[in-house]
């Protein structure tokens, strides 16, 4: 398990300068800021089409201080694999961290083939999915990571009919050394997990899935961006854990939630979000069941 990090442990140097083109209160941006602080300046980033394309600048300037390869939608893990291979040629593979960072579409949908291949080959990179649970950059269309019941522009009537893919478990089936889930609302935990992934360099692909609330896409006030992410965790909707060399451990914020009575009512998470405005009582119950099932699976795997 990662060591607990205090705010004073976080490097002061900012790798993303002020003035990006992302939306106000963008949680993916907050996550990215702490990810780059954790990985440091000797990092090369690969990004597919996503909101992260926007953060890297649209009008002749970039606020990001590390080198970036902005690649096609379906290939970020493959592009990063090429960088990893060439770093070996330069003899710099030990000192440089390669980060592939993709949205949920670029990870669980169009990007999954390349990601699966890189994971299978144990390519030495960190793959981060920042999950804002839909195609936000193209106007809020559903993805394989959109939760059940959420209204998007391509699920406009009943909301999405399917649950989100359990990407951490899909990645675990690849036999990875390090898998973690995190949330942008807990930047210290997020920071610690990326430090851990960096330390495990040489152990193949390390996968971190970060839930990152999107104010316009989820439909909540900008000021609630942090609170919504916290509620996702506190209601048990988004369990935070690590799987280190096959062993699952719950993260600090999620540990006590193994007891269902310690979880906040799911309604507190759903209610402030306009994407859940059409939920029927049956759909709400389905989401409750989803949370219960998720935790039942986790309870069988962790030492309580």
């Amino acid at each position: 398990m990662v060591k607990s990090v205090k705010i004073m442990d976080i490097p002061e140097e900012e790798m993303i300068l002020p003035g990006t083109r992302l939306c106000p209160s963008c949680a993916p941006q907050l996550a990215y800021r702490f990810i780059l602080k954790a990985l440091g300046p000797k990092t090369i980033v690969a990004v597919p089409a996503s909101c992260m394309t926007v953060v890297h600048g649209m009008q002749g300037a970039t606020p990001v201080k590390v080198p970036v390869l902005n690649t096609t939608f379906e290939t970020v893990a493959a592009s990063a694999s090429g960088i990893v291979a060439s770093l070996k040629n330069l003899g710099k593979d030990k000192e440089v961290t390669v980060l592939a960072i993709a949205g949920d579409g670029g990870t669980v949908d169009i990007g999954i083939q390349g990601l699966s291949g890189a994971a299978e080959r144990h390519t030495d990179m960190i793959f981060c999915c920042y999950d804002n649970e839909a195609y936000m950059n193209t106007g809020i269309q559903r993805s394989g990571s959109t939760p059940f019941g959420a209204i998007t522009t391509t699920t406009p009537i009943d909301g999405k009919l399917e649950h989100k893919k359990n990407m951490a478990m899909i990645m675990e089936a690849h036999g990875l050394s390090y898998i973690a889930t995190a949330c942008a609302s807990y930047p210290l935990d997020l920071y610690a997990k990326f430090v851990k992934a960096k330390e495990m360099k040489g152990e193949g692909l390390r996968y971190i899935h970060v839930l990152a609330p999107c104010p316009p896409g989820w439909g909540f006030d900008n000021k609630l961006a942090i609170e919504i992410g916290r509620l996702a965790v506190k209601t048990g909707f988004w369990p935070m854990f690590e799987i280190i060399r096959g062993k699952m451990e719950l993260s600090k914020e999620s540990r006590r939630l193994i007891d269902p009575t310690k979880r906040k009512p799911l309604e507190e998470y759903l209610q402030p979000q306009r994407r859940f405005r059409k939920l029927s009582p049956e759909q709400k119950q389905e989401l409750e069941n989803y949370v219960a099932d998720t935790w039942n699976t986790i309870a069988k795997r962790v030492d309580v």
Partner: protein
Amino acid sequence: MSKKTEEIPDILTGEYFTTGNLAVAEGSLAAGCKYFGGYPITPSSEVAEHMAERLPQVGGHFVQFEDELASIASVLGASWGGWKSCTATSGPGYSLMVENIGLGVMMETPCVIVNVQRGGPSTGLPTLVGQQDVQQARWGSHGDYEIIALSPNSVQECFDLAIDAFNYAEKYRVPVTILMDETIGHMSERLVIPKRSQVKRLNRKKPSDKPGQQIHLPYEADKDLIPPMAVAGEGYRTITTGLTHDARGYPVINASAQKKIVKRLCNKILLNKNDIIKFEEYLLEDAEYVLISFGISSRAAKGAVNLARNKGIKAGLLRLITIWPFADEAIQEMAKKAKVIFVVEINNGQITREVQRAAAKQKADVYGILKLGGSIHTPAEILKEMEEKI
């Protein structure tokens, strides 16, 4: 779980003020489209969003896929299930679709692909106009084939050509591309959706033999070079493949089978060029200086013709509505009479090259008036470039 929607017709007869993207979606529904498989991409996403809302209302089916490969592959599958089907995308997505478009050509699968073009190459200008995919629509997939591509220049025409595209796809059993562009897709104009009785819907030919009674030959073409099409569930034992095949649909890997099928796939389009090729003429009777254009560029070109006429320059416009197959004969005739032909397009001369080929050895010189994406020509810019060559 699905809520009951009131009966909403597939042809929403009436007058509207709407965008090209919504018009092409409504045109597809009016043509009888019942299936859309797609993936979000700017600037075409509104087509998918509209279909997601509308298809369940008309008994159709919308699926958002995990990428464009899956989207177009599902469209081919739905077509073989008997549904008129389509997808919509933009340059990067179209690039991912081309392999399956080739499969659609080889399996002779009716379907429609909307490409709302943006500036390229690669990610290029996601939110700004381009016309740089016209040659890709022709040659994007590997191998020799003929294909149909149409280019609307107004919101109304997005609707009208969607119907034509489905009709061509069904009639000739070929994937048809609608080459829109970001400006046409996003601009709002008047749209008139006609009465149901005024919408002409063509359907693919059905086999004349009865299912199960004899060996069915799914690729035995009629005299018009087009084989009737059985669809899944009708009881015919049908094999279809991207491999070179014979009339039975069985793979035959040799040169003579290859020659036979490729010739037929090309000729079923080429021999019907008169039915497929559409263009619009404006002030061409006495024109010495001819502008050739298509899509959004043709509207600026028309403005330039008017400016030129005001100055006493005998200008005219040939607007290509069908881009592929190419209007070789019409352009050749034009090149015999005109002094200079100017091709106005938002790319580096992709149609200019075709016009130069069609007009070779004729009287007229051919020049391109080109932009490389991100903005459209103004009539004054076009006139200025014309005057430099006059």
